[in-house]
Every structure is written in C-alpha cells, then in structure tokens.
C-alpha cells in the first residue's frame, strides 16, 4: 500500500497543488531533550565491531551548526553489553582522540573526509574486542548516564544469504550504460525473516536506499527474485531515469543483513515516516527498542557480495 499511496499522492499533488508554502517554526517541546541511542552489533561475514553512539535530541532550530552537533554527544556514560554470560564495558572514544592515520581510516568507512570533518564524533566501543557476536544470540545493552538508565535488547538471527546476484538491462527503452541489480534468495519457510541491505559503488561508503528493509510476508519459504536499488542513484538530485540503477563498469558491493523483528520495526517505521509526508499523511511514531530513550540497538547477521556492473 505504501507504493500506491505514494504514487497516488505524488500524482494528485502534481495535478492540483498550485500550492503555496509558508515556513513556520514549531513550538518548543515542554519536556526537554531525550537520550538517543544508535548502536549495532554484527555477526556473520566480516562483521563490523559493535559500537554505540549516545546523543541527546535537538530542539527544533532552523539551522544546526558543528558546535550543536558536537555538543549533542553524551560523554562519560556507563555503557555495558551483555551476551548472557559475558558483560563488557564499552569505552568512549572520540574522533579527536584518534591518531591522524586511524582517523582517516575510520572517517572513510563512513564516507567522510577526516581533514575537514567539523564534528567531533564520539562512540562507545568494545576496545579490547572481548565480545564475539554470534548468530542466534541476544545482546543486552545497559547505559547509565546522568542518573538515567537506558536499556535495550537485540537478537542476531541466523544468516540467510543471497543465492545469486546479477545485472541486467533496465526495463523500458534500451540503455547500455545503466543496469538493474537483481538478486535471488531462498527464504526459510515457517519463520518470519527480516532483511535489510546496504549498497556501495567503487569502494565508497555503504548506504541504504529509500526502502532498505523488507520481510518475507509475500515470499515466505520461496525462492524469490527481486531488484536491489542502488542507494547512490536514489539520492536526491539524481536523474530520475537513473533512479535505483547502477552504472555499467562500476563495481557494486551489497551488504545483506538479517535482523530481528524489533530491529526491522524501527527501520520500517523510520522509512515509512520519512516517505509518508504529504497532503493526507498522518504522523508515524518510530518504533524503538530502547527503553528510556529513542533510537535503536540493532543486531545484524551480515553477508557481503561484490560484483562488476555488467550484463
């Protein structure tokens, strides 16, 4: 329904809205800022080390500057992750604490240029590498800061790898410079599976497309083929005819993840909320698994695929 609703709204917006826009400033919140957690823990192929970013919300301002962003990070929190037996205390590391070489390497992972990065990012890490995330295991997060306790739990499900990936000519008019990425998956029957994918080209940072999550509601237990959009060409400002397609000759990397339902719900509500702004839309509150704050503590089971864009 999301698809037809969006198309429908866009069409009618185009047709009738000789609209007039007027900027306004929403009222200030009464309750003050809230804590925001963004943390991930991965198992599978070449997993990224677990990390947690702890920030506070901003009031609604017309603009935000580097000082406000840097000031939003919450420091000196007691951050712990427990896998049932082992409890690991995460240490806070800020970007400014790193050597220039490591800074450059870390910044590149997230698509930043370390030399001109204006924000001093801080994350909580398992610096000693004590945790070894595994599939079919739950991980409890506990944060205590400024007398406030935040908790969350995530589960890393079994990996469901892609069976195959291939590029083919995009539908419609013949075009030998663009390619559509198709993948096939054999979905395990009888259990609900939740998936998310990231994509990058030519070794760039991994990004997500406008709709990066799905569940097996329509293809439970089936071998199913579908398109994976190129997050780079779904960005704003890209030529519409290239939307979601890859450029022939590039190298594409896909990070394919399985996750638990609560993790899926967070991204599903987030993506629906972001795409559901318009004449008839109502608000969607993001479904978070964080108790005592906003955000997500999410487990992934990942697999990577790199292919040359050709058909």
């Amino acid at each position: 329904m999301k698809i037809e609703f969006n198309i429908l709204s866009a069409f009618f917006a185009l047709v009738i809205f000789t609209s007039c826009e007027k900027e306004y400033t929403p009222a200030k919140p009464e309750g003050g800022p809230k804590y925001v957690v963004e943390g991930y823990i991965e198992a599978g192929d070449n997993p990224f080390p677990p990390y947690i970013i702890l920030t506070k919300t901003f009031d609604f301002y017309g603009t935000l500057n580097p000082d406000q962003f840097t000031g939003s990070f919450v420091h000196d929190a007691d951050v712990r992750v427990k896998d049932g037996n082992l409890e690991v205390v995460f240490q806070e590391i800020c970007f400014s604490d790193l050597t220039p070489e490591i800074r450059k390497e870390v910044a590149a992972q997230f698509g930043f240029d370390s030399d001109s990065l204006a924000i001093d990012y801080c994350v909580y890490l398992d610096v000693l590498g004590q945790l070894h995330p595994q599939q079919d295991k739950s991980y409890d997060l506990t944060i205590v800061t400024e007398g406030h306790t935040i908790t969350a739990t995530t589960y890393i499900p079994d990996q469901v790898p892609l069976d195959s990936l291939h590029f083919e000519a995009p539908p419609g008019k013949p075009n030998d410079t663009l390619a559509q990425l198709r993948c096939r998956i054999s979905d395990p029957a009888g259990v609900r599976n939740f998936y998310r994918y990231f994509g990058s080209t030519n070794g760039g940072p991994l990004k997500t497309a406008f709709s990066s999550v799905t569940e097996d509601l329509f293809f439970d237990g089936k071998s199913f083929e579908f398109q994976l959009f190129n997050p780079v060409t779904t960005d704003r400002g890209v030529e519409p005819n290239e939307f979601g397609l890859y450029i022939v000759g590039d190298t594409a990397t896909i990070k394919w993840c399985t996750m638990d339902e609560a993790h899926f719900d967070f991204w599903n509500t987030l993506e629906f909320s972001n795409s559901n702004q318009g004449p008839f839309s109502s608000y969607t509150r993001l479904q978070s698994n964080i108790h005592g704050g906003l955000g997500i503590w999410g487990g992934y089971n990942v697999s990577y695929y790199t292919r040359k864009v050709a058909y």
Partner: protein
Amino acid sequence: MTSKAFSNLLMRHTLLRYLLTCVCFSIIILAHGQTNHTLSGYIKDKESGETLIGANIHLEEDLANGTVTNTYGFYSITLPRGVHRFVFSYLGYQSFTKEISLDTNTTLNVDLISGIEMQEVVVSAKENQQDENVQSTSMGRVNLPTEQIKVLPALLGEIDILKTIQLLPGVSSAGEGSAGFYVRGGGADQNLVLLDEAVVYNSGHFLGFFSVFNADAIKNTTLIKGGIPASYGGRLSSVLDIQMKEGNNQHFAAEGGIGLISSRLTLEGPIIKEKASFLVSARRTYGFDLAQPLISKTDFAGTNYFFYDLNTKINYQFSQKDRIYLSGYFGRDVLTLAQRERDLQFKLPYGNATATLRWNHLFNDKLFFNLATIYNDYQFRAGFDQDEFHFDVFSGVRDIGVKFDFDYFPSTQHQIKTGFQGTYHRLTPNIVTGSAGETDFVSSAKPKFGNEFALYVQDDWKLNDWLRINLGLRGTLFQQTGPYTSKISGKVYSSGEVVKTYNSLEPRIFINTTLGPNSSLKGGVTATTQYLHLVSNSSSTLPADVWVPSSEIVKPQRGWQYAAGYFQNFQNNGYEASVEAYYKSLHDQIDYRESFVDNSVDQVEDEFVFGKGKAYGLEFFVRKNKGDLNGWIGYTLSRTERTFPDIENGRVFPATYDRTHDLTFVSNYNINPRLTAGLVFIYATGRTFTPLERLYVISGNLQTDYGPRNSQRLEPYHRMDISLTWTPKGSAAKRFKSSWVFSVYNLYNRKNTFFTYTDYNTDLQMGEATIKAYKVSIFPILPSVTWNFKWQ
C-alpha cells in the same frame, strides 16, 4: 445456523422478544380499527410527476393536525368524518388548498406547481406551510432539495451535495475542498450514506475533493445528525439519505451542463405517460483528456485521469396500489500513470456500483409497504507493472441485502413504522497478488464475511396538543461467518459457519413539547451500533482505506447520543431558528497503533487499538426561508475527544476533526428574475495536528520525534465564496432554458493550511543542517464558469 443464532438471541433477550411482539402486533392491527376516514395519496411535482418527499398536509384551521409524505411521496391522514379544508405544501412550490368531505376513505393525488423559475428556486411560498421543524419530533434533521443546493457557489463550478451539508451546524469538513464530512464528533465511517437505500461506501472522487453524487440525478437529500429514527441503523453518527429522481413521467426532458472540469447530461421521460418513466444521468471529467495531445509527446504518454458517474432509474406504476422502481449507480475514478522510458505502468481504478429494486404497495389507505432488494459493490484496485514485475492490490465491500418497511397511519395520533433488514457482507481487505519473473506471490489476507440483521418498530405518537413522542426500538444482530481461520483458537470455519455473533438493542426516544404555536422544546436519546468499520491512517479518508467487519478481534462500535433543543419559528414561518445541545459517548472506537506502517499486512485488525470517545456541543441555526434574500447562519461550539489505552497511555486527546468554533453563513439573493447571487462564508477553529518536537540523528540523517497526538492546531480556517447565476433574457418562455453560473471560490485568497511537512538538509561532514517546516495551502482564489441547460 443463522436462524438458530437468532432463536438463541430471542431466548436471551426479553427486550427483543418485546420488540418482536410489537412488530407482530403492529402488523396484526394494520387491517383493523378503522373508525374514522382516511385521506391518502401521493404528492407530486405537476411538471415532472416526481413524488415529493416531506411535503406537508394539514388542516387549514388546525396547523398542528397534519402529516408529511414519506420517502416515496405517500401520505395518509385519518380524521373524523366531516368536511375539512386540507392544505398541501412543499418548500419551493405553490401551496394547494382543497375542501374535502370525508364521508368515506378517499384517495387524492396532488400535483403541486413549482412556483419559481430556474434561478429562483430558494424562494419558498411558505406562508401556509406547517412549521414541521417545530411540530415534529425529529431533531438534527435537515432536508436539502437539490434545487436549493444548485444555486450555491461551488468549487470549480462542481455542484456538490456533500459540501453543502458541511455548511450545516454540527457538520465539519474533512479538509480544504474535501467532500468528506464529520458529524457531531463522529468519525467519517460513522455516517450512513444511502443512495436509493443502497449504502455508498466511498462517496468521494479525486481523493474526496468531489462527491460521487451528480446533483442532476438527485431529487432530495436528508441529513439526520441527531435523532436517528429506529428505521435507520448501522452507523453511530448520522444518516445521509439521498434519493434519486424517478424520471419525468409527463414528457421528455433533458438537462445538463458544461463546466471547467466536467460535463453532465441527464435524459428523462415517460415510457408510458404517467405510468412509467426513465432517467439516465451521466457526468465525466475531461481535464486530462484535453491534455492528451501534449502528454502523448512526452515520456509519460498514456498517463490519464478521469472520473465518471452514471445514474439510471426506471419506474412503473402497475396500479394505484403498486409501483416498482429499479435504480442504479455506477461510478469510477481511473488513474493511469505511464513512463515509457522505464516500461512502467501504474493503474488505479476504484469506485462504487449500487442497484436497488423496490416495490411499493398500498395494502389499504393507511398501510404503505416498501420492499427493496439492494446490491452494492465498492472496489479499489491498484496495479503496478514494470518489465517482469507485476503487483496488484485489491480491496472492496460487496453487500447483498433485502429490507421491507411498513408505514402505518392509524390516526393523526399515531404514525407507526416497522420493518426488517438483512444484509450479507463480503469485505475484502488489501489482497496483494503479483509476480516477479517466474515467482508468483500472494498475501495471506482473505475476504471476511458477515450477516447483519435488523428489526425495528417506531411510533410517532401525538399524545395531545402539546406533547408528542417518537418511541423506537431497533434490534440488531451481526454474525461473522466463514470461511475463516480463527487467529485466536486456530479453528477453521467453513463457508457460512458462524464465527462470532454480536447483538444489540437500540432504543430511540424523542420528545417534543410544544410551547406555543411557533415554538417547541425537544429532547432525545439515540443508541446506535456499528458493525462495519473504516479505519484510516490518513488525515482524511482515502479510497485505499479498508472497511473491516466486526469479528472475533474487533468489537462493534457503540454509541449513545443525548440531545435537547429549543425550536422557534418567526414571522409566519419566514424564519426558523433552533438551539440544540448534544452529548455523545462512543465506545469500542478503533484506531491504528501509533507505529502502524501501511504495508498491506496480513490482517489489518492486528494493527488496531481500541478505545472510547466523547463529543459534546451546542448548535445554533437560523434560516430565512422567504423573500428575495434567504439563507442561513449556523454556529457550533463543540469538543470531540478520544482515549485509547494503547496510545500515549490513555491520554485524552482531541480528535483530528475537533473544532471548537464552526460558523457558516449561507445566503442567496434574487436580484431580479434573471439574476441570483449566492454567498458562503465559513470560519472554523484550526484543525488539530501532532507537532514535531525534537530532532535527532540516526544513521547520518535527522529524524523527528513527535509530540503528543493532536496537541497543536493549525491557524483558523476561513473562506468566502460567491456565485452569480444569470439566465439570459427571453429564454424563460421557451422549452429550452439555459443559465450561466459564475463562481469564485476563496474570494479573498485566504491561504488556509492544508498540510504541513518538514524538509531537512544535513551535511554531517560540515556539521551543518537546515531544517524547515512548511505549511502548504491549496486552492487559492479560483474563479469558474458553468453553463447549464434544460430542455423540457
């Protein structure tokens, strides 16, 4: 199984047994007890032969001694033997007075003459008309003849019945330009919209900006927002009862118009003069058709949008006592989006179809019978095709029903109505089918089925000159039936097997105390139950919204409304005024949970949360019926609240359509016989909305944290529309008449907010973000012109 369930219900409910006894008793006494004499017949329009609904019949010497025609134009009045002078009158028609010696039962069909020309229709010769709004027990009931609606200003010149009723106190609009409406704090799905007795499940075209009712095919519109009589049921808040024209049985006639976005044509005439007639009425938009030469040269060739309506009706009068009607409606919105470059096509057709076959029979001068078989079907479909990917969503409602009603007029003290209604529902949720290459997929959602039965009896009882009571009782029963697999027990139910049964007894009591010849005090209690529900996740209802039945998961919605009002007419009924107060409690209300994502989920019921609501308000209404200047002023002071334990821990919040103040001013002025001016002004408290309060970064992008639901309001809504209807000189005497309607919507170009949105630009590399919140208004000042014609 069905009859067994009904028997069990009877065993359990003493009150229902009493109701059935009343019904049986009513039927038994129908043929007895005739001591006085009865005058009965039909009241019709002389020119077209159309029956007139709600026409007055009363004694000239005793205004309070009278009756009105029913939905089929029939009247019956029983009086002591003797000579009486009867006055027959109807809004917009010349009254007719006749002296009749009632020595025996007498049949008198009366043809009233429309007293005005095409552009003067609102003027009413009401001097002799009984002040029905003061004398009757009905509350919150407004009759709107179509001719009255046609002279009001309209958005883009499209005459719209639903937008006109929004101008009445207690009725608010679903949004700027929307034909959707809310009545006394009830939801959009809580209005029973009937077209020739068939339920219309989606009454809007073009996302609700235009209603599906083509005014040329409509005879009469009645809105009941308060005291809903026992003969109606199935919705909590209101009844909008719309009757199509029957077709001119005197001579052939044509009517139509050419407007900016659509054209209309209606043909009607006798098949057998004064015995049988037909009506065919069609409307279609063509804005995108005109643009096709341009669109076809672009990458979007094949893209188009239009909507159309087709109304048809035939009737045949077998004898003075028997008449049969067959009416139908078919309407569709059709959107096609195509993009050749990407081999993409999106099709979205949706619309209603209804059919009603009715038989009216007069058992005797006092007993009128109506039997109707009703079919309606609302379908919504969306299909997406690209290369080897096909995706189709279908939802809909299909009803097959039968109902019968007896109208019994034993004396001027009693007017008894009783009847039965049974409907078989099939409700299809969003069923997704598709294919991706060689793989087919289909969602596991399945249609749901239900039987709905209702039995009612009501008596409009005039106890004496100053006290009148309308007592009604409606017993309803709903069964969810198979095929169905229980989500709770896992039990598999076969076709027709009963899954869950609900029942309800709904008392309806209305009292009228006459304070003087032109004033009265009224009070009433209305209990209602609703078994079908439309839950929307949008700020307004949309064609894609899905109707769901009561089930083992979803309880029926129940409501009680208490109302009291003072009614006063002035200057020989030239002015009518009323003040009504109401309090409404709503139970088992339904909404989506706050984090609902419309992903065509397996069972939409799993996404529901349940709660309660209340609404209360005060309505003021003054209408001027006579003279060159006429119209009304309505004002409502109200509050509408909802509470759901699963939404913000049960915090009480105002509904989206809560309006503290709602003021409407509607006026027509007949400048001369060829020129009529119309003016509408609306002022309403701004709509509530859920504000964004905080921002935070997730995955490098700003996200929104919303504040409490509906805790802020948009700025007040106000707008003025004007119209000028001009009938060219000389055309009045000819069979062919035409007129031009010039309208200006939103005369002073008020920028009323239609929706809000936020736009984020985040550059985390530079540590900068720009956040802007916008209010968007649509429909600036919009002039339009429509040419209407009539050939008769």
